[in-house]
């Protein structure tokens, strides 16, 4: 199920610092908005702050590793965020179907804002991934995701909460990954330059 395809390009050669900075700023804003969304949801569902849900992750991607190249890191991140958006969209639909919709309160506004911000972040990470030479193929595919969610209402509520936490988790991961990119880019550039100069010297 996990399918990954790369074009074998060295990542980061053309990564724009501005794009990275913009993506980081968006991720930071999304993180802030996620925290508000979680708070509003806890308040709406009378969940305490220490409400415990299962610790397993909904999003399935290889964990980011320092051993990975930049484009692979970006691919992992982008893939995770794509899954997050799918889950979020499904959660919103299920919530409106099963738990009542139509109301336009603070919670619903915040939920919509998080969804739109996540989409914006995805555009930026996608741009970075494209620049890094990665391929934007979701893995696992949307068909493979368990998007149906539980049918029992209480479990559905917990599931929605898990999705919000998942978005929050991957947003934090995105910030960490994006903040680490400039130094990686610099190192890789330096390495690329060395390799090229070595090759030209050999010639």
């Amino acid at each position, binding site marked *: 199920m996990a399918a990954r395809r790369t074009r074998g390009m060295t990542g980061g050669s053309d990564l724009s610092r501005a794009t990275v900075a913009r993506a980081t700023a968006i991720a930071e804003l999304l993180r802030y908005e996620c925290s508000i969304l979680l708070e509003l949801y806890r308040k709406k569902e009378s969940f305490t702050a220490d409400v*415990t849900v299962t610790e397993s992750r909904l999003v399935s991607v290889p964990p980011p590793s320092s051993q990975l190249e930049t484009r692979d890191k970006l691919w992992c991140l982008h893939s995770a965020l794509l899954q997050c958006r799918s889950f979020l969209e499904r959660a919103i639909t299920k919530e409106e179907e099963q738990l009542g919709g139509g109301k336009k309160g603070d919670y619903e506004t915040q939920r919509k804002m998080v969804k739109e911000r996540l989409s914006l972040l995805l555009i930026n990470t996608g741009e970075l991934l494209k620049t890094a030479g990665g391929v934007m193929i979701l893995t696992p595919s949307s068909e493979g995701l368990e998007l149906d969610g539980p049918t*029992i209402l209480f479990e559905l509520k*917990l599931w929605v909460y898990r999705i919000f936490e998942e978005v929050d988790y991957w947003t934090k991961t995105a910030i960490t990954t994006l903040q680490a990119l400039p130094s990686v880019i610099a190192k890789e550039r330096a390495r690329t330059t060395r390799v090229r100069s070595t090759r030209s010297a050999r010639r």
Partner: protein
Amino acid sequence: MVLVKGIMMIPWLLLVSLFCKSTQDGNGQESGVLHCGAQNLKLTNSSQMILLTWEDTPSCSAVQDVLIYELEVLIADKKEHYDEVAVTPDQIGSSHSWNWTSYLALECASHSVRLRSRYKNHTSQWNQETLPGLETSKAEVYPKDKHFQVGSTATFCCVLPAGDVFDKMSLTEYSSADMNTTRISNQTYALTVHLNQASKYSCTDVKCELNPDVGACAYIGYPPNVTDLQCETRDLQSVDCHWTDKDSSLPFKSVTEYHLLESPTICAKWPETRCSQEVRVDARERNWTLTASNPLGEVKLSDTADLTKRVHMFPPEGVTVLSVNARNVSLEWKWTVQQYYNLSLICQVNINNHGENTISEYFGVGLNFAVLNDLIPNWTYNVAIRCRTAQHFWKWSSWSTNVNFHTKGDVPDALDVWMQVMDNQIITIWKMPLANQSHGHIEDYEVTWTKTTERERQNRTKVAPNNFSLALSLDTTVGHIVTVTARNINGSSAPSTITIPSSNPDGTRVNTSLIIGSNGSFNLSWSASPTASCGYIVDWCPTLGNCTVGWLKVSPNQTNASILSKNFKDGLRYTLSVYACTQEAPVLLQRREGYVREKKIQDGLFKSVKGQQQDWDYEVSWEPISRREQTAFIQGYVLYCLDNNNNKVINFSTDNPEATSLTARNLKNGSYIFTVKARTAVGECGATSITATLNLLTDNLIGTVFISLAAVFGLLSLITIVCYRHWTCIKDTVYPPIPKPVLTSTGEHGCRNFQVDQCHYSEADIMDVPELYCRAGTPINGFVSQENMPFVFSQTPKGYYNQPLKKFTPPPLTLPSTAIPSQPGLPSSPFRREFPNASYNLIMQPGNQQSNFCPELQEGTSLERSSDGYQPHGHPETFATNQTEEDPDSPMSCVSTYILLPQSSSR
């Protein structure tokens, strides 16, 4: 013998065996009944309800009476419920069923049902069926996603897998006081809650707090609560019903659904409260039924109505203005429902004229047009239409959409003309035509005038559209007729004519009376006048200053008017005149002066305030107050006097509004602040003050004293001069020469031969005398000047003499010869030696009183004054002689005698 015995035993054995058989036969039937019981037990469930079905065993067919089945319900092996089912003989053989709803979800614990039969005190063995509880590998809460009614009690359970430890259960938004947790089995716990509040958002969470949390959702709400169903028809093809539904709600996905006329189709969902359904509308009453249902219940409500009497029309559509004229317009509209064209209708047209609404009604079958009359030319209107059936009024339709139109222009309305005669000028004035009077832009005004005596000779002039008066210098001794018309693009208005009366100095005058306004207006009334054929005219303008006249025309049958003008100012005096409108010139009927609202007069009203002291009074005067200064009617004046010494205020007032002075009376010396104020209906006002000091008493007193002293001095001087000039004459006349006494001997005592017994002085008395003279008096001039007349001494050396001396010879006086040292520097005379202290004003009484001459000290009289001359006394004072007896140590004592003081000449 044995055989015989055996043969004899046989019948007995037969009898016994027969008995036994008969007994066995009877016992066999009974034992068959006792074997009657249940078979084929089947225990099922639906939600929390358990359903048990069973059949009778074949042996039950013998039962001929009511068979009882006893049932017991055990939850987690604990007896929870007991019930009985009675089976009549005719039911025996058929299948039986019984159900019971558990308070607990069946997943929570095993539910067992035991069953046995009972017949005539005989019971069968128990048969038992069990529904096992849930055996789970993970914790669960039951029931899940169930509906509960607010006010009910619900039990939830938390089933734990083996090894898990229970902590607590809770229900969101419920306090622990409303909940009770019990242990059902080792791994099952129940939470019983009284549900007193509906779920707020989606559903209420029931949590079993573990790691991770497990829980269930509960829908808590209300069953349908529908009231006030009312059905009608709008299109005569369907029924349209509406209702109210309070609290009929359950959270999302469980809302109340409404069905009309028992139709399975959902007509509406809460919170909608209206729906319609196609029906055949005919003229008969029938029930219109609404069914409201949600998971908690169902309610049916009916409304009985003949829909042909309940037609609630849709509003007219497509309202258009067909023809627009100056004063009328025709409107047309369409009906979206064709049946409306067959109905007898009433329509209302709301004509909105710049915010003012007028409603006109129109009737007709299938009415779809209306003609609006009496419109204002050149005017914009906004109209809307609504209709209803003429018969069986039910409801008006809503208003149609608004339609605007603008009427065509027309000639201006006739002007409202009035006149004002000032000196030799006749001012014709007219009111500016309002927009709804001009019917178009006014281009100019035309004024024509003629003398009443020469009507054929007309003068004519045009006036610019922004002028609304024309001053004509005409001979005011002759009446004039003035006509004014306004002209716009559509033509000239009808002429407005006014007759200017000739000024007649001998004409009847009308007295002016006062009037006070109320609420910013003047309420004027007058007596009806027979001459007022065309009504009355009331005009007004400020009494003083520039007069911009305003006027009001009222009908002949009206004899009062409320005059309200935006130009009215508080505190400004107006003159109001009432004229009778006649076929000739207007006739003045009444004139009033007043304030629309009196205003306090500003301080400093009084000019040239002066004060004048008049003895103890002080008059404050001022100039007459002009009416221009008056912002209220003056009813009088008040004068306040503030005494600066003690801050005491006294006031004096007058009710005469014409007064120009006020007098403060009976004042005292001191400084005063005099404040004069005008008294008006709005209080005292216009204060003006002056300060004055009153010192009349001191000046007059000093003056009087000085004048008196001067007069006395002058008189004394005159007397002195006269006396000096005529001293000889006076002396001869008043003081004739007295022959010198002949002394018989001379020695230490010059008056030895005197009759000393006439004065009985004791020695002690004589010796006491010097004590009285503790201070030597000044020598008496008289004694000195009368040195040669030792028996005469005068207290008035300036020529005044005691009268008795004139007539009587001085009596012989014997004086005790006391050793009183003579005063140094004085002439040595026997007399002087004996009366060294001349401060005593001793009076020698002549005649027969000679025996009682004693010196006496005049009380309260200074020695100096006594020595200077005679002091007249109005009342000769006497001292009682017995004083001596009471006080023998008195410095001077006269025994049985008095000392007489000179009598006043006035006496």
